[in-house]
């Protein structure tokens, strides 16, 4: 028994710097190609600005989890550049309960971006692993996975989330987050599965198998990295979708008991309550912030798709 000390696994999992360096070079090339297309570059810049706002809020804004009301001054005031606005309204005006809209929107960008990227990245991570195992191994697990995703695809997503929140018995922001975390992996699993079905037939996988690599190693080191291109595109597009889902659910009342949560849907809903017919900016401005982010993310996603999949170039 004492002879099995020198196992080859130690060598197999060695950190291989040369392959990482090659991969980083590849990504640098992709970035250069990406910023050559003006729409994609614009999308990238806007997304970076939003990330900058997130970082600024995270590190330099005190009390960044709550909108600060001013109950002495509850009538919404227009921003100074709005027709009929006064200097008292400031840059972005105020909304219901005397909340400064500019301040609230900055905080809302942080919350929305942070939570939606968490949902998307977690979903992508789980989906990638499930998908690569299903695609590479096949068999019963694969079949079960496909039928399960069929079922989740046959219920409109928003309806599914609403019903799940109902079953959870709670309607707050964190419950919605938990539900989205649990439900966001199926598209990624399908994407990666479809890719790995073709990748696993390629010569280098056969070579790895001939060299005696284990299934786990082949899946993680050879199949998975080569299925990631569409996953990046999907991540980029999904960021916009999830942000909108948060906002939409918040808007239709899935933010029970947290009126002062800085969240774009909550702000739009607050504007709706304030009376958007009299104070249109309270609805218009937060929605515009959401729209610009979604447009930027879509531009970035389309640009990434063009770069990663040259056949789809138009």
């Amino acid at each position: 028994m004492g002879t099995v000390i020198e196992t080859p696994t130690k060598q197999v999992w060695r950190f291989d710097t040369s392959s990482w360096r090659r991969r980083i070079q590849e990504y640098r090339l992709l970035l250069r190609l990406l910023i050559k297309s003006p729409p994609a570059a614009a999308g990238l810049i806007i997304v970076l600005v939003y990330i900058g706002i997130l970082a600024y809020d995270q590190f330099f804004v005190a009390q960044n989890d709550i909108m600060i009301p001013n109950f002495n001054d509850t009538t919404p005031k227009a921003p100074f550049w709005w027709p009929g606005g006064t200097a008292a309204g400031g840059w972005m005006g105020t909304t219901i309960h005397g909340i400064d809209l500019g301040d609230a929107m900055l905080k809302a960008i942080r919350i929305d971006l942070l939570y939606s990227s968490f949902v998307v990245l977690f979903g992508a991570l789980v989906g990638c692993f499930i998908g690569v195992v299903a695609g590479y191994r096949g068999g019963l697990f694969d079949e079960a996975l496909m039928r399960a995703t069929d079922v989740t695809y046959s219920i409109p997503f928003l309806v599914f989330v609403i019903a799940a929140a109902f079953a959870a018995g709670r309607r707050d922001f964190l419950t919605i987050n938990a539900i989205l975390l649990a439900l966001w992996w199926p598209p990624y699993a399908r994407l990666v599965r479809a890719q790995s079905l073709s990748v696993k037939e390629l010569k280098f996988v056969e070579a790895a198998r001939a060299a005696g690599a284990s299934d786990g190693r082949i899946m993680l080191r050879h199949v998975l990295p080569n299925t990631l291109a569409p996953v990046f595109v999907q991540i980029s597009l999904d960021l916009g979708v999830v942000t909108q889902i948060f906002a939409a659910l918040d808007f239709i009342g899935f933010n029970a008991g947290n009126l002062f949560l800085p969240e774009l849907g909550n702000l739009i809903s607050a504007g709706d309550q304030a009376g958007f017919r009299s104070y249109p900016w309270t609805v218009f401005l937060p929605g515009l912030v959401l729209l610009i982010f979604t447009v930027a993310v879509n531009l970035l996603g389309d640009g990434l798709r063009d770069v990663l999949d040259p056949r789809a170039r138009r």
Partner: protein
Amino acid sequence: MEGVESARLIYYVMRRLLILIPTLLGVTVITFFLSHAPGPGFALAVYCSPKLGPCTIDNPLLKPIVDQFHLRDPIPIQYVYYLSGLLQGDWGFTSSPVSGGIPVTQAITLFLPQTVELAVASIVLATLIGIPMGTVSALRKDRLSDHATRIFALVGYSIPFFWLALLLQIAAISLNPEWEITGGYSPTVLDPGSPSSSWAFVDVGGTPVLFSQPTHFLLLDAALHGSGTVFIDALKHLLLPTITLAIGILGVILRMIRSGMVDSMNQDYVKTAWSKGLPDWVVTRVHIRRNALLPAVTVIGLLFAGLLGGVVLVEYVFAWKGIGYWATQAVLRFDTGGVMGTTLIFAIFLVVINLVADVIYAYLDPRITL
């Protein structure tokens, strides 16, 4: 040959219908899980009141309810009861749309037509605008009108539905302050016993008019009654929600048509068609666009998934009394039957639409292995 083709199509449809069965069973598992997994207290909660004592299955006062819903049985047995109830048309009761509660199946006959009306109207509008715009965009590729159309498409599919709905309301009100935008239809059940005798209060110029509803499609009913004012009023109410949804779908249809046409423009058979000296409109319509329409058909099936999500929001904002409105009301009012019923009907709706899209695709494209 014709007979063989149609036989294959029928075979294909039958096979697809068989595949639907496990999918729909999975959906019922989900709806059952949603209502029963949190424990028996969830199903009981609607019937509990402080006067009846503790809200548990051991409470003797709640025994009839416990027996009726088989709450003492194991979960799998309860599922079988639930499923057999579904198959026999017993979908439970919903309390959110009409006070006092009506059977879910009856509520569906009240609300589903409104949603179908809205969804079909917006798909038709989006297709009618999207196909010509996509064609123009592809033919004038990289010119100003193409860029404008692409930006329009991008904004269209990025825009949050509920925000667009609010903006359109502001715009409509600034155009005409008298315009009654939300609601417009409220189903009213005078005799909950029979689903055929449902009526609606229709708001015509501020005065509610009682109106019998043979089909529940308000436009159709108005036409059947020969009532011009109700018809125009219904159209007015339909306009804004339809535009909201159509703008969202339009972007995707536009993109599909444009990219499909740009693809097929470089194909050899198109060059042949040009070199034969065929007129412009024949080449663009018959050779280029017809091939771009194919993928658009499948996309419309996929679009419906997003559309039905959007329907929930748009119906909420416009207080449009459809399935989506009912679903949100059911959640906010803790109405288990309503949530399960709407989830199931949404799933069936979506699955059927996808089936239809696939069948149309298979019918249009002879290369599809049926």
